[in-house]
Every structure is written in structure tokens, then in C-alpha cells.
């Protein structure tokens, strides 16, 4: 067999193996180059795989040559390909940005560790997107989670430690819930392969165990993706983590968890949804819709109340995740497409705003609202990128954020769900309200008199920031890569399994 055929396992094995090498390399500068090279290779692999998938359809790889359902299967469809490309691309951008920022925020003796953990985290995330085995998924989930806890704890100040601890406890509870649920499903079916599991669940005659198992799985994953009201860990973790980590987590971590939820909900559980006897008006998608929309509105209000911008954006992430879940819960091709395209665009725009805040933290020493007076004039390029991301977050037409909101609105109106449409609009307006506070302070309030002149952030940070910033505009007009992929992915997700 050629190397090309072994790309699926290579995708996550590469960063997994490359991570510990950083510990041997020692010098931070070497580690940075090594990590960037690995992430670049991952991106190349992801894009190659995506091309293969779009060409020939689903790729199924049997690890060690064992046939599924006995062996572990790596199963790649358009959605996995999309996620792999997204995660690796964001990793490349973040790693380009990282060296200068990490030098500033993390002590020299721990910088090598940072790159190790970053690569392990990347391996976990990529693994979650490749595997077709539900238990294998848990392992990758924990690889990424454990490395993320540690990454969060590298943040400045002692609060980072506490945030990491809170995240660890809740994350572990979530993962354990997932394992419990999976155990119950395994009890009914005797299989862990997702496709196999779906087929067996349809024929299973034990709806109560199925219901409980599915419940545990969904609740466990909801903690991981910070679905309201299980989002309590997220604001602390995003706020106190190093800037680079916040950016990477916000852009990819929760997104991959959402991918897993969608994958399990649509591929594994959806075919047997009819067997779930819920009391009449209650439906699974109805609950998801309500939780998603409530989360969107309430987290947006919380975001408005924050004075720490990282925390504000963290709540904003909770809100946007709510929107994506609500979109997927409408269960139409348009709505799932909308959710997925918003997932991509939101990753881009959140990377932009968090990376911009990293620059602000570096130069102004704080990301609290009151310390940002005049920041727009003091750091024009950094804050300009922030503004681009913020406008995209609001969903101004011509920016990436608009595409997802448009598609979701369209999906809501196609089904005459006026309430949903109005709430999506209201969510955008709340976003505008909390984002615009920043604009007013940064551009309209004069800088304090004793403020020293500060230089712009170094070029090595500015360039990746500019790339994601401009991507907001590009993906707002040129949507073939985002919307086109999202459409293919939603077809893959809903294919044959429309409940």
C-alpha cells in the first residue's frame, strides 16, 4: 500500500508522535518551528483527504487490517474532511502567531511544554474527527481534554489554575457521562462501531435503555461543547488561558465537540429516534432547539454584562454554540447547512477576535474594557482586525458571520418558524450591543493622558491576525469553500438518516 492510503491514521498519529519530540528539542524557538511544520503537514494531509473524499466519497480505513465492527474503523466523509481542514488550518494560523505571544505570556521553561501540549491537543481533535468508533472517540476526546486542561493552567495569574481545575472536573464528569451512555448502548447492541451501532439500535427492542444511554451521551457531550446550561466551565477557562490557547479553543475545541454531537445524533441515534417514547409534545429536537435558543439569548445578555473582553467573548461563544445547536435542531438540509457554515465562519471570526485581544494584552497589559480607552488609535491594525471579527460576529452583510445567519434565517422561514427567526435576529442585535461597547471605548474615548505610546504588535503576530481578519471578508463574499463544503457535509450527515 502507498502512503496515500495511510493518510487517515497519519492525520492524528503525526501530531501525537510529534508532540513529545518538543520536550526533547528543548529550545522554545526550535519547538515553535517544529510544531508549525507538523501543523502544516497536518493541513496538507487534511486537504488531500478532503480532496479524496469529494472525489470518491466516504473513506473507510481499517486500523491494523481488522474488519469493522471488530476492529477500529476510521471513517471519513465530507463533514469529517471539513472539520479536519478547519482544525488544521486554524492550528497553522495560531502556531504562526504563537511564538511572540507565548514568549510574552508563558515562562521560558514551560514554553516547550506548551508546544507539546498544543500538538497533543491537535492530535486529539483530529482523532475525534477521523474515528468511526464510539469508544475510540472517547479516548481522543480525553487526549484533547487533558491537554487543554493543562494548556489553560499555563495562563497568567493564579486564577488560571482554578479555571483549569473547574474545567477538569466538569470535563471529566462530561466524559464519564459519555462513557456511561456508551456502555448502555453497547449493552443493547454489542458493538461500538458507529455505523454498526446505528443499524443495531434500530432493531433493538429495549427503548428504555436506549433512552437512558442516549441521554447520558448527549448530556456528556453537551458539557464538552458548553451547551447552555452546561457552559459554566467555559468563561473561566477562556478568560484565564493564555491568549493563543483561548483563540485555539474558541475556534476549534467546542466546534469539534459539536461535530461529535452532530455525528452521534444524526448518524448513530437518529435512525432509532422513533423508538424513543417521549411524552407527547416533547421531542429531542424540540429540547435542543429550546436549549440552543435560550443559551443564545441568555449568554448574549451575560456577555453584555462583562467588563473583561475575553470573558465577554467566551459568553459570546456559548451564545453562538446555542445558535448552531438550534440550527441543527431544525433538522432540514438548509438548517444543518446553516449550522455547519456558521461553525466554520465562527471559528474564523473567533480566532480573529481572540488573537487580536492577545495583541492588546501584549501591548496594553489588560483586556478589561476600562483599560481599552483609545486602543483603536494606539493599536490601529490590531483593533482594526478586532473590528472586522466583531462585525462578522454581529453578522453584517459582506462578512463571514452573515452567511451562517442568513442561511439559518432562511431555514427558519422555510418552516414558518417565525419565533426562531425573530430570536436569531434578536441574538444579532444583542451581539451588536456588547460588541459596540468595545468600539465606543476603543475609538471614541481618548487614551488616558499618562498613556505611553506603544508600538504595533510584532509582524509575526500581525500577519496571521491579518490573514484570519481578511478571511472574514473573503468568506463573506466568496462562499464556495465554506458554504459549498457545508452543504456537502450536511448531505453526508443527513444522507439516508433524515428522521
Amino acid at each position, binding site marked *: 500500500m502507498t502512503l496515500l492510503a495511510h493518510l487517515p491514521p497519519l492525520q492524528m498519529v503525526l501530531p501525537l508522535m510529534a508532540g513529545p519530540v518538543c520536550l526533547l528539542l528543548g529550545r522554545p524557538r526550535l519547538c515553535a518551528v517544529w510544531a508549525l511544520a507538523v501543523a502544516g503537514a497536518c493541513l496538507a494531509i487534511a486537504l488531500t483527504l478532503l480532496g479524496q473524499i469529494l472525489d470518491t466519497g466516504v473513506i473507510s480505513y481499517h486500523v491494523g487490517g481488522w474488519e469493522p465492527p471488530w476492529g477500529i474503523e476510521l471513517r471519513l466523509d465530507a463533514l469529517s474532511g471539513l472539520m479536519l481542514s478547519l482544525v488544521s488550518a486554524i492550528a497553522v494560523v495560531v502556531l504562526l502567531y504563537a511564538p511572540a505571544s507565548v514568549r510574552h505570556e508563558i515562562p521560558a521553561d514551560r514554553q516547550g511544554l506548551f508546544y507539546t501540549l498544543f500538538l497533543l491537543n491537535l492530535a486529539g481533535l483530529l482523532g475525534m474527527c477521523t474515528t468511526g468508533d464510539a469508544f475510540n472517540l472517547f479516548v481522543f476526546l480525553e487526549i484533547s481534554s487533558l491537554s487543554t486542561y493543562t494548556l489553560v493552567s499555563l495562563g497568567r495569574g493564579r486564577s488560571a489554575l482554578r479555571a483549569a481545575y473547574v474545567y477538569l472536573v466538569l470535563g471529566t464528569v462530561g466524559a464519564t457521562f459519555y462513557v456511561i451512555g456508551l456502555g448502555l448502548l453497547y449493552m443493547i447492541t454489542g458493538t461500538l462501531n458507529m455505523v454498526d451501532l446505528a443499524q443495531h439500535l434500530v432493531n433493538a427492542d429495549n427503548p428504555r435503555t436506549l433512552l437512558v444511554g442516549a441521554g447520558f451521551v448527549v448530556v456528556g457531550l453537551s458539557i464538552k461543547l458548553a451547551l447552555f446550561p452546561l457552559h459554566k466551565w467555559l468563561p473561566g477557562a477562556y478568560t484565564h488561558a493564555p491568549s493563543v490557547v483561548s483563540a485555539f479553543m474558541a475556534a476549534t475545541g467546542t466546534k469539534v465537540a459539536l461535530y461529535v454531537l452532530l455525528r452521534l445524533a444524526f448518524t448513530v441515534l437518529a435512525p432509532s429516534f422513533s423508538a424513543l417514547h417521549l411524552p407527547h409534545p416533547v421531542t429531542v429536537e424540540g429540547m435542543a432547539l429550546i436549549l440552543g435558543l435560550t443559551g443564545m439569548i441568555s449568554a448574549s445578555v451575560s456577555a453584555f454584562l462583562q467588563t473583561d473582553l475575553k470573558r465577554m467573548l467566551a459568553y459570546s461563544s456559548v451564545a453562538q454554540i446555542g445558535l448552531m445547536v438550534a440550527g441543527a435542531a431544525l433538522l432540514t438540509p438548509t438548517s444543518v447547512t446553516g449550522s455547519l457554515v456558521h461553525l466554520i465562519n465562527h471559528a474564523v471570526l473567533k480566532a480573529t477576535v481572540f488573537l487580536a485581544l492577545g495583541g492588546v494584552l501584549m501591548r496594553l497589559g489588560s483586556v478589561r474594557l476600562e483599560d481599552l480607552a483609545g486602543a483603536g488609535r494606539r493599536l490601529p491594525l490590531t483593533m482594526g482586525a478586532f473590528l472586522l471579527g466583531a*462585525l462578522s460576529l*454581529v*453578522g*453584517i*452583510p*459582506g462578512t463571514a458571520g452573515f*452567511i451562517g445567519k*442568513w*442561511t439559518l*434565517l*432562511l431555514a427558519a*422561514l*422555510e418552516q414558518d418558524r417565525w419565533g426562531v*427567526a*425573530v430570536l436569531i*435576529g*434578536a441574538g*444579532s*442585535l444583542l451581539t*451588536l450591543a456588547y460588541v*459596540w461597547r468595545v468600539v*465606543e471605548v476603543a*475609538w*471614541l474615548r*481618548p487614551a488616558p493622558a499618562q498613556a505611553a505610546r506603544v508600538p504595533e504588535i510584532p509582524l509575526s503576530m500581525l500577519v496571521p491576525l491579518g490573514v484570519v481578519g481578511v478571511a472574514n471578508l473573503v468568506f*463573506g*463574499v*466568496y*462562499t464556495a469553500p465554506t*458554504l459549498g463544503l457545508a452543504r456537502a457535509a450536511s448531505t453526508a450527515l443527513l444522507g439516508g438518516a433524515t428522521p
Partner: protein
Amino acid sequence: MSVLAWIVATPLLGAVLIALARRPFTRDLTLLLIALATLAQVLPLISPVLAGERPAVTLATVMPGIDITLSVEPLGLIFALVASILWVVASLYAIGYVRANALPAPKRFHACFALAIGAALGVALADNLFTLFLFYETLTLTTYPLVTHGGSPEAVRAGRVYLGILLSTSIGLFLLGIVWVFSLTGRLDFVPGGLLNGVIEGPALAVLLGLFVFGIGKAALMPVHRWLPAAMVAPAPVSALLHAVAVVKAGVFTVLKVIVYTFGPDLLANTPAAHWLMYVAGFSVIAASLIAWRQDNLKARLAYSTISQLAYIVLGASLFVPAALTGAAVHLVAHAFAKITLFFAAGAITTATGMTRVSQMNGLGRRLPWTMAFFSIAALSMIGVPPTAGFVSKWLLLGGAFDAQAWVAVGVLILSTVLNAAYFLPIVHAAWFRPPSADPPDDDSHEAHGAHAHGAVSRTGEAPFLLLLAMGLSTLGVGALFVWPDLPVALARSLP
């Protein structure tokens, strides 16, 4: 790139050039040249459009069925002409004003001004609702720095109201309306005769119409008019831009465009449920006039007058007959020239004397004869007295109202003419026939304060020459439109 794309791109390019300019003189010259260049590109479009050509260019396809496309049709050309002609005049004024008042950050000011004009031209040339919405929102965002240019706390508050109302209506209602149209028809382009003909009817149509009319907050139809008086803290050239050239005109233009091309006048005329618009517009005309009457701050009075005059245009459109639509389109032009003159004059008065209130203007005609002469002519146009442009458009509107047998509209037009006279004539009378009052001008307005602080202006003479020149040109337009109304009328009549 096609001519149409260049028309939109020229001001954007101009903004960059202005930002790069090093010396004030180069900056001002660039501004003027760019304005003239834009106009020079719009003018040649007249004859092909009158001949029935509809050139178009697609710049990008955002989503299937959703393009960024520019095209030109009679209504859009009317708006593009108004915007590009008045931009030249407004640039002259802005240059003079910025210099006379030593406005801070002039480069940002002129650059944002140019961006706003570019966005307004984009609205004018938009070939579909998506493109229109794109430029509509761009216009909101590019005018925000102008509204808050002073940076004072009240400017920030005004900016908040401005942005809050315009974006919440556009995202909350306008966008919803657009998505609704798209979900019904799968397209968004402007179709002669109406895209929605035969797709939607009855109360749903009335609701959709409401989403558009109130969603287009820039049209300032009551009750979404609050942003307009709030935004008057902005420097005078901005007020002129907001009220006469770009923003409000973009609003009513969008309303007209939606009624003509998305709904189709025939569909609306045959739907009794949609006739509420006439009453809302009529109410807006009268109520805004009454409020204007009570205002002492000159700019506030002019702002409410704008709300009332915009409602004329919506009223004309809401009659759903061709004659009234023609009247509405011509009124868009007539009001633009007259109102820009009035705001220019208000700015000139403040620049020259520091006055901001109507009650201070006794005998002002003797101190500022030219300014007040231009002001008076424009005020007569607002009332609709010949020989001014206002007479022509009001005549056409009345004709349309008779045509539609809409006696309510006829009544509203007559009553509001009386009200217009009631709030404009006292100013004219006081300025020319009352002796100057003794009490000194107050300094409560930000602008007056700025003028004082910099002491750049003498308090006795006329306004600076550039301001007078700009006012003279726009007043000339007011008169010219009475004598030669053929072009706008011909364009408006060629609407489907």
C-alpha cells in the same frame, strides 16, 4: 471593470487617497477631483437609460441565487445623479467648513464622507435586494464615525441612538423581510412589475410590507425616526449629507425601489390590507411637521422637517399609482436640493455667528444677506411655492393623489403645506423684518463651542466664501429644477 463598478469604486479609492494625502491642500483637491470624477462617470449614463438600456455587471456570486450585481435603471439613476451632483457641492462646503471651524481629524472626516457616498452610490446601483442591503449597512457603518466625529459624550450617545435604531431595524426587520422574499421566490432581483406578483397576498403581504417599510429605518418613517434628530450633533456638512444626499435618501429610495420592483404597485393596489401605509405616512407627515413647529433649535427643526418631507415621498409611493410614484421620485430630487441648502445655511449661520436657535435669528438677514437669501429660497421650496423645485414635485404628488382618488392624501398634502409655511415663514420673516435682538448667542451647542475655541471666524461678516459658493450652487439647483424639470420627470415616468 465596468463603468458601474467604477462609479462605486471611485469614492472608495478617493477615501484611500485622502487618507494618504499629506498636505491639507492636496487632501482638499483630491476630494474635489474625486467628486468630479464620480459625477463625470454618472452623467454619461443618462442617455442610454432614457433610451431604455439597462447595463448591469455581476461582481460576485455570494450564494446560489444571491449575487452582488450592479445595474442602472431610471430610479437608481435619479438617486445616483442626486448623490453625485450634491457630493461635488457638499465637498466644496465641507472643505470650507472644516477649515473655518478647524474641525479635528479632517482626513478621517473627508475619507468617511467619501466612503459614505460610495455606499450611497452602491445603494443606487444595486441590482438586487442583497446588494442593496450590503451597501445599505455599509452606509450605516461608514456614517457612524461622522455622526460621532466630535467625540463628546453627547456625540457618543447620539451615535448609539443612530446605530442602534438603524441596525436594529435593518437586522431585525429589513433582513427578515429579505429572507422572507427569498424563501418565497428563491431570488432577490428587481423585476419590473414586481417580483412578488402572484406569490403572496392578503394580510401576509401587508406584514411583509411593514417589515420593509419600518425595517428601512433610514426612511425615518415614524416611529423609527428618532435617529435623525439625535444625529444632528454631527458637524453641519454631515447633517447635510445625512439629510439631503446619502442616508435618508438611500432610505426612501429603498422604499420606492422595493415598492416598485419587489412588490409591484399593481399587487399592492389590489391588496386592501396594504393600504395602511398611506395612513402611516400621512400621520408621519403631519406629526413631524407639528413637532418641527415647536422646535427652537434650527437643526432640530430642519431634522423634523426632513422626517415630514420623507414621509411625503413614502406617501406618494403608498398611493401605488404611476403618477404619484413619479411625484415621489421627483420630490426625492427637489427635497435633496432644498434641504441641503437649508442645512448648509444652518451650518454657515453657526460658523459665522455661533447661533444655533431660531429665536436668535432676528435681523440676521442684514448680517448674512447671502446666506439668508439662499435659506429663504430653499424654505420656499420646502413649502412648495413657485418658482422653486418644491412646487413641481408637490404638484406632481397632488396630481397623483387625485389620480388615485386618495382624498386623505390630498388633505394631508394641503394641511402639511400650511404647516410647512407655519414653521419656515417665521424664520424668514424674523431674519428679514425684525430688528436684531440684543442678547448674545449662546454657546450650548458643541459646534458653536468649537468655533469659539478656535476663534477662526469673525463674528461680524458673512460666512466664508466656499460655504456661500456651495449654497449658491445648490440654490441654483432649486431654481433650475423648476425651470427644467424634464430630466427627473422623464426618468421618473420611465419607471415601469
